[in-house]
């Protein structure tokens, strides 16, 4: 489902992955690679959404955009490594299944913080740390409820939604590069504020859909979000990025037996 999306950003993603691979090799003990096997669609999702949003604003991929995408890459990998840890009794190989994912995840979070400092992206420390706070609270509740055998899907969906929302919203901001991020919270008339909010809103729903997709959940809970995505798509400027998003939605919908809403067909006929 995501291959075409990732292929569209291959040069940028390759640059990001090469740099992280180099950093990981510096970690003591090559054995850590055993603990950090993350599927491609999981580790590339956030950086690609950031890049896609950035491309909506400008055609040129600047260093700043690449660095922010790199930060989302680190965040994405760390989130997945820390997404769920087995309790002692469940882990057959304690080092590979618990210790290395935990510690490499910690290292990735620190690396993310270091990159924010290194690449002069301090204005993004507040939204990114707030994102981590919100997601971690959701996943902490997830952990508590899991122990009590209470359904936990809602927390995971919210975590996924929040992360994608931020990747899309900040992708717009870094590409526009017009005003400091803090200015947008107090001034709703600034250029690209509308697009930041729109892409953020779309990003949230796409993040939710992606989690549902990954977990092979009953698509009945996805229908509203899926339709809402099409509503939002109407507010996005036409272009290659919009087509990629449409294909993504159609691909998900196809597997779930959902079809492009009629009003959209009329608009794009």
């Amino acid at each position, binding site marked *: 489902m995501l291959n075409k999306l990732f292929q569209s950003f291959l040069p940028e993603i390759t640059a990001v992955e090469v740099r992280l691979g180099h950093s990981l090799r510096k970690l003591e003990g090559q054995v850590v690679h055993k603990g950090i096997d993350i599927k491609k669609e999981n580790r590339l999702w956030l950086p690609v959404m950031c890049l896609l949003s950035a491309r909506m604003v400008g055609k040129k991929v600047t260093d700043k955009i690449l660095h922010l995408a790199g930060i989302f890459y680190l965040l994405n990998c760390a989130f997945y490594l820390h997404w769920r*840890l087995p309790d002692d009794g469940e882990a057959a190989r304690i080092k590979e299944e618990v210790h290395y994912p935990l510690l490499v995840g910690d290292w990735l979070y620190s690396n993310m913080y270091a990159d*924010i400092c290194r690449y002069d992206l301090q204005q993004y420390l507040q939204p990114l740390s707030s994102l981590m706070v919100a997601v971690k609270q959701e996943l902490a509740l997830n952990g508590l409820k899991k122990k009590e055998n209470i359904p936990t899907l809602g927390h995971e969906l919210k975590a996924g939604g929040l992360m994608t929302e931020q990747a899309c919203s900040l992708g717009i901001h870094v590409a526009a590069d017009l005003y400091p991020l803090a200015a947008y919270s107090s001034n709703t008339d600034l250029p690209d504020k509308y697009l930041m909010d729109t892409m953020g809103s779309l990003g949230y729903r796409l993040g939710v859909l992606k989690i549902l997709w990954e977990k092979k959940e009953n698509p009945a809970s996805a229908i509203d979000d899926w339709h809402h995505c099409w509503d939002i798509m109407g507010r996005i400027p036409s272009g290659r990025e919009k087509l990629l998003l449409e294909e993504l939605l159609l691909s998900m919908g196809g597997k779930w037996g959902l079809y492009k809403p009629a009003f959209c067909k009329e608009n794009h006929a």
Partner: protein
Amino acid sequence: MQFKELYQEIEPELERVEEYLSCCLQTADSRLQDSYRYLLQAGGKRLRPAFAILSARYGTQNGGAIIPVAAAFELVHMASLVHDDIIDEAALRRGKPTIRSLFGNDFALQLGDYLFARALNILEAYPNPALHRLLAAASMEMSRAEIGQIATAYHYSQGIRRYFSRIKRKTSLFITLSCQAGALVGEAPGECVKALGHYGHCVGMAFQITDDVLDYLADSRTLGKPAASDIRQGIVTLPLIYAVNQAGAPYRKRLFSLLSENSLTEERIEAVVQIIKECGAVEYSLSFVDRFVRKAIRELSFLPDCSATEILRQIAKGVCRREN
């Protein structure tokens, strides 16, 4: 010796740090709130906030600005302890059940991350590039050191240089930063920041070596956690390095025989601990503690003569008199 006895002069600031911690860990969910409250009430020496508060005394700016920084540093430290307990599969810390034993590994993992994120959230209000750069570097090195520690577990041939490199990254770097943070935020003169950094490094090294010695010497009740936990997990610390490399031949022969088995039984662990106690490893390790403490105190001669400097001196001396 209780460190908190030395903090009397900065008790008002430390109370403000506790209040700040309590405020910033507020949440609407009662289950999460209970776990945060438990964590705060679990106590701790609050060494890092104390260092930050003391170092702020050398600056020219408003001392109150250090309170959030001190709280953030304590959050980072708490995060590392919560994660350490997962790695160590620890059931107890300071005599109380750990977060992981009460709520599970999954929750403990997320809580540790949450604490780290909260710390960053607090610190983003400080536009001090040096502070952020140093904290980011210290965090990365702490994780690297932990990875190195478990990757080299049960490798008994490790030397002293590797050990010192590991404990520098694992413990001393963050204490160094805690000592410098207040001076940086308070815009103290560069020589003060440098001297405080060197002091922090030496105290951090002494602190960790003492910790490693106590792991062999003290009993579980005094430590508040199981004794000899390092050897149980194959973590090679200074007393063991000495015993393996420099103890008398009969001790080394017996030690090789005990460590050569794939798993260490309780009997073998007790035997290893006994060898450590008898072969001079403790005295050897404590001689390094003494050296680092003297170096730390020498660094204080570069600082103005004031009550903060005296408290730092007493803290350095207190490191080697610790029981837990």
